């Protein structure tokens, strides 16, 4: 109880009370000892003096007692009593005779009856001391026997004034108590000062520590503003203080030695002064150091915070364990249409289920976590369910001590759409280039139909008789030719259609078929023969029919151009384009092989670059192969080229097999 109460006391009071108690105990002990030694000593001394007087009286008075000469005896008594200061000490002296009768006394009054027979003494004892009352006073009565030889002839009583002794003792006691009090008061004052000296800095440090804990660095008494301004590191947190800060020593070996002040405004040498001062100095240095690091941390924090907040692209923080969003920047709200409140706590999979799964699998595996995860053209859903394309980078961090992923996305919907538009534009351009051929192609059936119908109307108008089989022949031919014309138109339409953005299962033979049907007759006029070797059991791939047509169209037209170029150079060989589809365990491929001019190696390296063209100005933009390459890459495929100058070129497009679709096939 007392101990716990003591523990609650302040340091100052602990010092004070401890010292006080100890001093009091010591003082008390000293007082008791002093009293015992001094008072008993004094009393003994006085008794001895009294005894001495008594012996003196006994010696001097023996003769008078024997002679019964009371007058001389009395004068002896008075001599003894009145000698110097004894008169204060000795209250009375009287002598008793052998029969106990008072022979002489120093009382100026009649002998007090109460003293009669008191404090008797026999010759066997040296002396007897007793406190006796007399005449309203008290006295130490010292009785000493008066001897003559072996006989006791009387007794001398010397009364020492108890009041006088008490007075002496009192004086002594007062002096002693005064001294003890003075000691206590001085000790009290010293202990108080000492406690204050120790406790005050400790309290100040406590107060500062409390302030620091609350994040208040400016209230610190230890750092004054003038010094703050004088320190070059105060406003430049990037400048390490080399007097104290060894943080950068390891990494900064190659760095030029930065600023070093002659005398540091903050860091004092810790050896100055006593322990309390050393503590204060160390503490001051520590506060300054913490302050610097805190500022550095704050700046860093602010930098990243503002990066996070002002980033032009959406950034999410996703908790790996709960798989929910824990933070998102304002751009996210803008792009995704959710408010921040809705976003925080929302499962990440709401944005894009498939990718979220992939992402957590990736980051769930500890070994791979160091690497950021990059994904291109992923479909994310806005709040209203509208899909958009994003490129995404995810990396693992620790967010409030929990593993989390920072997911940064870039909206590439526009780019994807622009790509689609570019592809579409390039396709329309190809169609434009083919328009003459297509017009001719379309003219053929129209011509036959026209002639057939003209023939029928002529027969009808002129009433000419024709055999029924001729009639049937014409009508059948017209019908066939109408079908042919609509086929051409359908193929053209399928080419012209803008591809939607969703992937489908495609059998490569289909786009090959439509390209061949559109071009083979036209090419024949230019003496270019298209030959196909199609594998009828081709597995499906994941792509877009329409865009694959575009790729094949580009390749076939390029092949045709190579053959025409070769023929312009004078080598009149029959033009042949071989389109072959094949598959193996890993993938499906389509190759377009021509026997045209061939491409030299230095050109072959560049053919997939945009705007690279070997054709004359105005003949082509050089986008065809670049676009084809882009399309093929988009489906995870490869476009490769194999060419020999003078013999021909073979372009091969290879796609990975679509696993699920193989079953469907």
């Amino acid at each position: 109880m007392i101990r716990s109460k003591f523990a609650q006391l302040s340091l100052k009071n602990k010092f004070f009370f401890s010292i006080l108690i100890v001093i009091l105990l010591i003082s008390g002990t000293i007082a008791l000892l002093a009293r015992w030694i001094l008072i008993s000593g004094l009393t003994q001394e006085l008794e001895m003096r009294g005894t001495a007087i008594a012996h003196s009286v006994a010696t001097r008075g023996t003769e008078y007692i024997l002679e019964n000469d009371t007058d001389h005896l009395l004068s002896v008594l008075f001599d003894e009593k009145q000698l110097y200061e004894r008169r204060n000490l000795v209250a009375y002296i009287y002598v008793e005779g052998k029969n106990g009768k008072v022979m002489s006394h120093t009382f100026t009054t009649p002998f007090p009856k109460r003293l009669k027979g008191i404090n008797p003494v026999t010759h066997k004892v040296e002396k007897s001391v007793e406190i006796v009352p007399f005449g309203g006073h008290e006295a130490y009565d010292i009785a000493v026997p008066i001897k003559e030889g072996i006989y006791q002839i009387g007794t001398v009583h010397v009364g020492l004034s108890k009041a006088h002794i008490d007075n002496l003792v009192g004086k002594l006691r007062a002096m002693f108590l005064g001294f003890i009090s003075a000691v206590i008061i001085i000790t009290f004052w010293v202990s108080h000062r000492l406690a204050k000296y120790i406790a005050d800095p400790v309290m100040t440090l406590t107060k500062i520590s409390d302030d620091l804990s609350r994040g208040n660095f400016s209230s610190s008494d230890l750092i004054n503003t003038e010094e703050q301004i004088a320190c070059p590191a105060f406003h430049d947190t990037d400048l390490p203080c080399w007097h104290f800060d060894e943080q950068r020593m390891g990494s900064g070996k190659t760095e030029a030695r930065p600023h070093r002040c002659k005398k540091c405004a903050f860091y004092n040498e810790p050896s100055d002064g006593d322990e309390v001062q050393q503590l204060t100095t160390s503490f001051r240095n520590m506060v300054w150091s913490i302050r610097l690091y805190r500022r550095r941390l704050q700046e860093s924090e602010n930098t990243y915070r503002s990066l996070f907040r002002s980033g032009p692209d959406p950034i999410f923080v996703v908790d790996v364990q709960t798989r929910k969003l824990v933070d998102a920047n304002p751009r996210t709200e803008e792009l995704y249409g959710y408010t921040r409140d809705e976003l925080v706590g929302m499962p990440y999979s709401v944005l894009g289920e498939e990718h979220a799964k992939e992402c957590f699998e990736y980051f769930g595996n500890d070994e791979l976590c160091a690497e950021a995860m990059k994904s291109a053209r992923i479909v994310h859903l806005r709040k209203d369910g509208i899909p958009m394309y994003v490129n995404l980078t995810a990396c693992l961090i620790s967010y409030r001590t929990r593993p989390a992923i920072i997911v940064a996305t870039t909206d590439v919907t526009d780019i994807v759409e622009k790509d689609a538009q570019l592809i579409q534009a390039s396709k329309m351009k190809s169609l434009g280039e083919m328009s003459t051929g297509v017009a001719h192609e379309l003219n053929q059936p129209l011509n036959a139909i026209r002639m057939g119908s003209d023939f029928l109307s002529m027969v009808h108008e002129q009433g000419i008789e024709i055999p029924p089989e001729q009639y049937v022949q014409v009508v059948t031919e017209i019908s066939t030719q109408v079908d042919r014309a609509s086929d051409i138109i359908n193929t053209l339409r399928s080419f012209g259609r803008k591809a939607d953005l969703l992937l489908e299962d495609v059998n490569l033979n289909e786009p090959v078929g439509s390209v061949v049907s559109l071009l083979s007759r036209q090419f024949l006029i230019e003496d270019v023969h298209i030959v196909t070797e199609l594998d009828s059991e081709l597995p499906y791939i994941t792509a877009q029919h329409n865009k694959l047509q575009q790729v094949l169209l580009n390749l076939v037209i390029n092949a045709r151009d190579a053959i025409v170029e070769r023929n312009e150079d004078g080598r009149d060989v029959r033009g042949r384009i071989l389109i072959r589809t094949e598959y193996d365990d890993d993938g499906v491929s389509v190759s377009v092989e021509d026997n045209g001019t061939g491409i030299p190696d230095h050109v072959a390296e560049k053919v997939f670059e945009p705007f690279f063209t070997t054709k004359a100005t105005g003949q082509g933009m050089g986008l065809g192969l670049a676009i084809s390459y882009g399309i093929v890459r988009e489906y995870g495929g490869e476009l490769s080229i194999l060419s020999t100058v003078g013999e021909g070129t073979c372009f091969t497009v290879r796609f990975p097999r679509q696993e699920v679709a193989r079953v469907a096939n």
Partner: protein
Amino acid sequence: MKILVIDDEQPTLTMFQLLLSTLGHEVLLANSGERGLEVFAEHRPPLVLTDIKMPGMDGIEVLSRLKEDEPNVEVVVITGHGDMDVAIQALHLDATDFINKPLRLEVLEKALERVEERIKLNTEKFITLATRFTSDTMVVSVRGTLGTADEAEIKHAFKGAGRAQRIVLDFTENTSINGAAIALLTDSIRSFYNDGGKVVISGLSENFRNVFEIMGVTRFATFVDNIQDVQL
């Protein structure tokens, strides 16, 4: 009349066969240029109809080979609709006429008529250009095939216009104009027009009117169907 038709399109050949035989002609068919030359060499028909765009040997080559072999053969080329460059190229090679695809029966019939007339005229001697004057107008009648050989005559005729305010070029229906002659006529008409004269062209078949249009003659001359429409 014996007619050779060269076309790579089997349906077209079939239709020609039906049409021409119904019209009372003897039809020879060939599905390629090479085959056409062989058939021509064998049967030597007075008229050849040939498609221009064909795999292998194309119509232009067939035309020049035929003209090399037999300059008097009448060759009518079949061109894609509006393919005037090819038509003019064929006319340069002395093609008699050209017909656009899709082919219209009436156009075919007219072309055949013209060819027949020309064949008939070809056997007789006739004057290609004849000029006569009425007050301020010079009328130039054109017969038969106007070819490179007539260059001097055309120039002479235009020079002879003298003070005439107006030239009327009167083409008979069976007239055919060679490419070089077209260019010369165009030049002459333009310079006459620029000198302040007026040019009227009458009786030209639609095909040739199209060719003149392409050459830009319509800006300098007015076209009428018949010489009777011109106020002399």
